[in-house]
């Protein structure tokens, strides 16, 4: 009677492994081999390849996409001990999420909208641990999974390019005049009104759109790790667009100041190529400043 025991225990340990392998195989099948029905001739059927091609293209606007899964994975790893403690019984409410992910996937494939397919993958990435290990685990995974949304190429935002260019050139002109450098803004061009001065055109790549997407990802992460309450996290995250616009105004202002001091060729050549560092330095400084301000208010309220 003792003989069946090892077989039974082997079956017990092998089944979950087999089911996990089946789950992984199905995810690969759905998202790599049958995930995209759009642009199949050029990019094949992989939704992942469709996404990665866009990260590599679009003039570098979406290149931050490479970092997002790494950051998301790091955030999960950072909370690994809390996750281990939070594991509980399956939560069958999450079955609704799994079914919604399946429906979204089918819809995306059917209507040739690969973004919907990718969104379904994110939903599945959150919904599966929710179902298997309970709501505590799901709560800890909300942000790392939601952060993956920044992977999805949102190239349709390029309609914002021209208004952003206008905003940046107007803002930079106001600041130039404030610093005593007489300048005029005509559409998206900034002209020095001093004789022999500079003439700058704020072109599409200088609109700050690519910076907005990257800043949104950076601000979301910073808000998550630096702010304690969801309201303050959302407040700081909502500031990402004004922060990016202000950072771009500072960058364009710096190009104009270099043009004023060292000549247009130097400003639009070497300096312009590296001026994105000015953008990120100023935008990140403003972001951390705002973050500290929000935290200080919290401390002040606690004292009161």
């Amino acid at each position, binding site marked *: 009677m003792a003989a069946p025991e090892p077989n039974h225990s082997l079956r017990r340990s092998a089944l979950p492994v087999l089911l996990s392998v089946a789950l992984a195989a199905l995810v690969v099948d759905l998202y790599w081999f049958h995930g995209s029905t759009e642009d199949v*001739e050029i990019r094949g059927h992989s939704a992942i390849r469709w996404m990665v091609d866009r990260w590599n293209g679009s003039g570098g606007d979406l290149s931050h996409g490479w970092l997002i899964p790494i950051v998301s994975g790091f955030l999960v790893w950072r909370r690994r001990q809390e996750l281990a403690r939070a594991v509980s019984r399956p939560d069958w409410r999450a*079955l609704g999420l799994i079914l919604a992910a399946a429906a979204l996937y089918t819809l995306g494939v059917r209507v040739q909208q690969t973004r919907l397919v990718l969104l379904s993958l994110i939903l599945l990435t959150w919904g599966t641990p929710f179902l298997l290990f309970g709501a505590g685990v799901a709560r800890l995974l909300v942000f790392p999974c939601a952060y993956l949304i920044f992977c999805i190429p949102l190239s349709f935002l390029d309609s914002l390019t021209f208004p952003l260019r206008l905003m940046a050139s107007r803002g930079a002109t106001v600041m130039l005049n404030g610093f005593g450098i007489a300048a005029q803004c005509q559409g998206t061009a900034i002209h020095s009104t001093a004789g022999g001065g500079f003439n700058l055109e704020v072109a599409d790549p200088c609109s700050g759109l690519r910076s907005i997407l990257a800043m949104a990802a950076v601000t979301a992460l910073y808000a998550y790790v630096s702010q304690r309450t969801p309201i303050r996290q959302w407040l700081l995250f909502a500031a990402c667009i004004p922060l990016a616009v202000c950072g771009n105004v500072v960058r364009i202002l710096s190009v104009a100041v270099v043009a004023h001091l060292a000549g247009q060729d130097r400003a639009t050549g070497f300096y312009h190529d590296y001026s994105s560092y000015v953008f990120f330095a100023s935008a990140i400084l403003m972001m951390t400043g705002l973050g500290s301000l929000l935290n200080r208010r919290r401390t002040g309220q606690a004292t009161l």
Partner: protein
Amino acid sequence: MTSRSPTGRALLVVVIVLGLTSLAVRRLPPVVVSKDFGLRPALPERVGDWVGHEILFCQNEQCLKTFDRDELTGRTNCPACGTPLDAWAPGEKALLPSDTRLVRRVYRATGRPAIQVSIVFSGGDQKSIHRPQQCLRGQGLVIEASATLDVPLPRRSPLPVMCLIVRPANRTMRELGVFGYWFIGGGRETPSHLKRLAWMAWDRLIHNRADRWAYVSVYIPEAGSVEAGQALLSGLLRQLVPELESSTPGSPSPPAQPY
């Protein structure tokens, strides 16, 4: 964890749901690509006083010259570099699916600016037609404003056309251009890219049908002023659209309904 444990059962359920999804996607009836075009797949040689010239593109990426077919007197290679010519620009060929169809003419009339008219007919892939804003930026044009223009047409409701005010990005001379476009397919017409996508999605999902939508664009590179450009655009479309909507020249078919 075993298949009988609660977590094992939950894992089994996820596998079953994804397995059924995989099966369902394979078993759904295929989407049938319509054989009918929303418009006549050709541009007329003459529209009133306007004479249409076909444009051919050199396929050499280093040359990229364009020529009027009439000027070439039967030559099929680029007079500048000898590379074969084609109705498609090399960039368009690389970007668009092979079942996409394209017709294009430049209309000229004495004393008036030239007008480029092109129609792209989508194939089975919705990628065949994309937002004009994407290619205009790729062509070095800046969009300064946009508005919907209702063009009055004979014997039908006005045609809603999306009218963009554009200018070249990298020139000191600020030539102002007017770019008008709209989409037509499955008996519907709209200037909205989003509405077109919604209709295409609906037809694919509910009717298993992919209509061959047509994207008609009219570009006046040197319009002079917004008003003059819009007047030229309206004037040409009043004569051109009834011809495009007829299945054979001279026999008008029922026009599409604007949405």
